[in-house]
């Protein structure tokens, strides 16, 4: 415990939310501008659903660990 500081899970959530938004955005961009040499199973658009999943988990972690430690 570090009094006055936030738990590590808050920062885990922050990074997951950031990564989720960036990857989701990249996935949406790829729909509009498909890559010249797409990876295998590109049709599944893994960036979109994986990015969304990370962002959701990140938001939950942040929400549950907002409070500073006493």
């Amino acid at each position, binding site marked *: *415990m*570090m009094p006055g*500081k936030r738990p*590590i*899970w808050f*920062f*885990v959530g922050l*990074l*997951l939310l*950031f*990564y989720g938004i*960036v*990857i989701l*955005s*990249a*996935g949406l961009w*790829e729909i509009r501008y498909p*890559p*010249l*040499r*797409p*990876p*295998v*199973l*590109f049709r*599944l658009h*893994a*960036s979109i659903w*994986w*990015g969304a999943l*990370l962002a959701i988990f990140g938001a939950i972690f942040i929400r549950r660990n907002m409070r500073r430690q006493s």
Partner: protein
Amino acid sequence: MVPIAPFLKPSAAALCAMPFSAPAKTHLIYLSSVDVVIIVAYFAFVIFIGFYVKNSSNTVSDFFMAGREMTAWIAGLAFVSANLGSLELMGWAGSAYQYGLVAAHAYWIGAIPAMLFLGIVMMPFYYISRTHSVPGYLQLRFGNSARAFSAVTFALMTTLMSGINMYSMALVMKVVLGWDLNLSIWLCSLVVAGYVALGGLRSAIFNEILQFVLIWAGALLIPILGMIEVGGWSNLRRQIEINLGRSDYMHMWSGLGHFSQNPMGVHWTGVVFGWGFVLAFGYFTTDFLVIQRALSAHNLRAARMAPIIGAAFKMMVPAIVILPGLLALSVLPFHLLPESAAIATGGYSYNEVLPLMLVRYCGPGLIGLGVTALIAGFMAGMAGNVSAFATVWTEDIYRPFFNRRASDAHYVAMGRWCTVVGVLVSVATAYLVQRSASIMDYALQLFSFFIAPLFGTVLLGMLWKRATNAGGFWGLLAGTTTSIGLWVWVDRVPSALRYVALSPNAKGMAENMYRALWAWIVCVVVTVVVSLLTTPRPPSQLAGLVYGETQLPVEEYAHWYERPMVWASVVFVIFIALNIIFW
């Protein structure tokens, strides 16, 4: 991003007909700006964590033991994350490609029983002796000679292991990104040195939690998409049998009746006794790198739960390590090679299977996340070694033998400097291991040299009150020299392997397992014989150190679902079930 080596999905028929030939070697991808943002954000974040906890790491307890205030979950995840370095991510993925499903033994029989044993039986002793380290326990139990020998060999082993982590990471950077080996080694070393020196064990543990989450977030997508591509487990088995023309790659136990009936060239006795007992119990119950994480827990129950929680997650790691290696056997349209052959021919080596699978399935953003997961794994492994090295050097070598009466601030400063020195020595060893044949082989050699005999000493120390100081020291010394001697023998006379591993059909992995077993046996025999010939310590001196002379502390009341024994039983039942399913 423009992939240089695109992977198009081969049909099953094309796979069967396709001659396995490695493509011309170049790095796999160029990073897009999205990938660069993700990687840079990670580096910035871990340095930020170091500064964030710096002011909470000013005493010896804070810096070396994270204030002993971690919850069971944090200590447990740090426990498993600290050994989720390059060995796990690249070494065992490569081993799965090379040996098939047998490689999963590294996570199941080669880990789970030992982790549960640590949580249930051994952790109370470590925790109530209030020691800073495993060498610290040896000092209390066997005196300064055993402590000094153990501390020096441990310091040597951690820096060598750290070098493996660093070399593997630099290899990924070279293969995936085309980065220069030197640039990768120095960049990541400076970041690790920065955050561990700033925040000590607390910073290392917090970053390990972060790294644990990132490793799963970045690596789990590969097996998910891989299983979709091959059409499920049954199709995967069938395709591997067709591609390789043999069925023993997809069984864990059924081919272990004879050395020649499985791709690894091992026998079940070596797997069970050499790997599952000596190497695994030795690593998980005496390697201070992992024990230090459990000792940071805020009470005894949390310290006992930490390895049990770690074991539950450890059982799942094959999904992101072994499965990609097996999938590669099915879907990659060329053969991977041993390290030396890959260097000679310009092909891809077994150790590169995970990055190859990453670029097969991932586009911009996900590539960055996957590369970040690999970097995080390497940095977690390296930070674990460096923080353990700093603790053992300061507490078990510097304080007892050079400066007994310094202030807390002095020892913390020494720990910070040690972190930097440990990283520099690791950099040197990273260049050394480039000559090694394979990452896994190198690591298991180190474990058999130093961990196997140490396990014999600690086990007898905890369970047999007749063991004496002289017995402990001479047993440890004899076990270590036996192990190194056997390695030199086989290195000079390769045909000697048939005597060490008890079969003319044995291969390299079997040598490591049996060498560890011999080292442990010699250590135990010498310890017992010397102890019986020397005067035992009075029982009053063994309180808190040996079963039978120790009043174990009564844990506070806990519901059944909070008890370590209950969860250890659950994990053990699942472990048995998994071995039967994949028999």
